[in-house]
């Protein structure tokens, strides 16, 4: 006979990340406290939730700290040129439309060096999920300021403060024609998992801008005490969920960044359009 204590006992098994990782490549190269690891974990949980097969996923990345991600995961992976990840991903998707293409890029990679590829992938609405890991710095090359570095922030190339206004990746994606635009943070990891899951199941270009912390360069230069301090100040206090924002007065939203699904529309997908066109022309020729 089982006791009450045994009946109440709930079995919570932690998520098995090893199923999707290449264990011999770990530990990863990211610095202590880097948010990229947290984002990777959220992505793996979202992939599991979406029920995607490992062999049906192709992960493409450019160059940078975040772009090291495909090295650690056991999918079809492609580590390509700086900023050109989305161009390569477009090629992969057109050649093998049955694959689920996931692009991992950083803010400098996607918005500065690969700015044009970013805009045109959004415009075409080709079915891929793009994770832009926004840590407001170029971590791999020594902490130069990037297109998302806030005004007055210190970087190795702006020792007296940054005078360039930052980009909003979500606004740009939306204006360029992406059909799913969302933002998450590494701090709100369960919400991020849900957002990435929604992006993965959406058909069309899905852009998820993920705010995470670079404690080594951005944090040290801007006098943040630790990775936790950065996560609390930038990610927790600096953002507000889009649903909560509807109920808040405008003065409380000042200086806050919205997170959650910001834009979602349905539009014909590029590969389908391409396939349809070929079929039509082939039928007309007969």
């Amino acid at each position: 006979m089982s006791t009450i204590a045994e009946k109440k006992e709930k079995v919570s098994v932690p998520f098995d990340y090893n199923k999707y990782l290449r264990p011999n490549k770990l530990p990863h190269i990211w610095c202590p406290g880097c948010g990229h690891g947290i984002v990777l974990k959220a992505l793996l949980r979202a992939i599991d939730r979406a029920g995607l097969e490992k062999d049906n996923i192709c992960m493409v990345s450019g160059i940078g700290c975040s772009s090291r991600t495909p090295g650690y995961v056991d999918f079809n992976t492609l580590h390509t040129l700086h900023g050109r990840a989305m161009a390569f991903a477009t090629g992969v998707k057109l050649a093998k439309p049955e694959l689920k293409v996931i692009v991992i890029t950083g803010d400098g990679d996607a918005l500065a060096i690969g700015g044009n590829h970013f805009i045109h992938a959004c415009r075409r609405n080709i079915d891929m999920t793009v994770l832009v890991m926004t840590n407001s710095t170029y971590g791999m090359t020594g902490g130069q300021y990037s297109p998302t570095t806030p005004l007055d922030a210190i970087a190795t190339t702006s020792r007296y403060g940054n005078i360039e206004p930052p980009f909003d990746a979500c606004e740009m994606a939306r204006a360029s024609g992406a059909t799913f635009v969302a933002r998450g943070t590494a701090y709100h990891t369960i919400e991020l998992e849900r957002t990435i899951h929604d992006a993965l199941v959406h058909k069309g270009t899905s852009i998820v801008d993920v705010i995470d912390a670079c404690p080594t360069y951005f944090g040290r230069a801007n006098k943040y005490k630790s990775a936790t301090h950065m996560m609390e100040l930038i990610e927790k206090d600096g953002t507000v969920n889009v649903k909560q924002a509807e109920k808040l007065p405008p003065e409380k939203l000042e200086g806050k960044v919205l997170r959650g699904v910001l834009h979602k529309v349905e539009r014909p997908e590029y590969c389908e359009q391409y396939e349809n066109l070929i079929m039509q022309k082939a039928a007309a020729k007969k």
Partner: protein
Amino acid sequence: MTQAVKKLPRIEINEKFCKGCSICVDFCPTDVLELRGPVVAVKNLEACTRCQLCDLRCPDFAIQVFD
């Protein structure tokens, strides 16, 4: 009838992966973990509520809580 003994969770820490960023220590709501030298260690297992926040926010795949 004897009172059932409270079952403690098992916290697995991979010391080879842990980089000592202290994210799990700072975010633990019941103060279960501490930094012991360069890696994290369990200080007070009885206080653990199995909330999994350490697992969710560990960037290094270094900590997991088993029931």
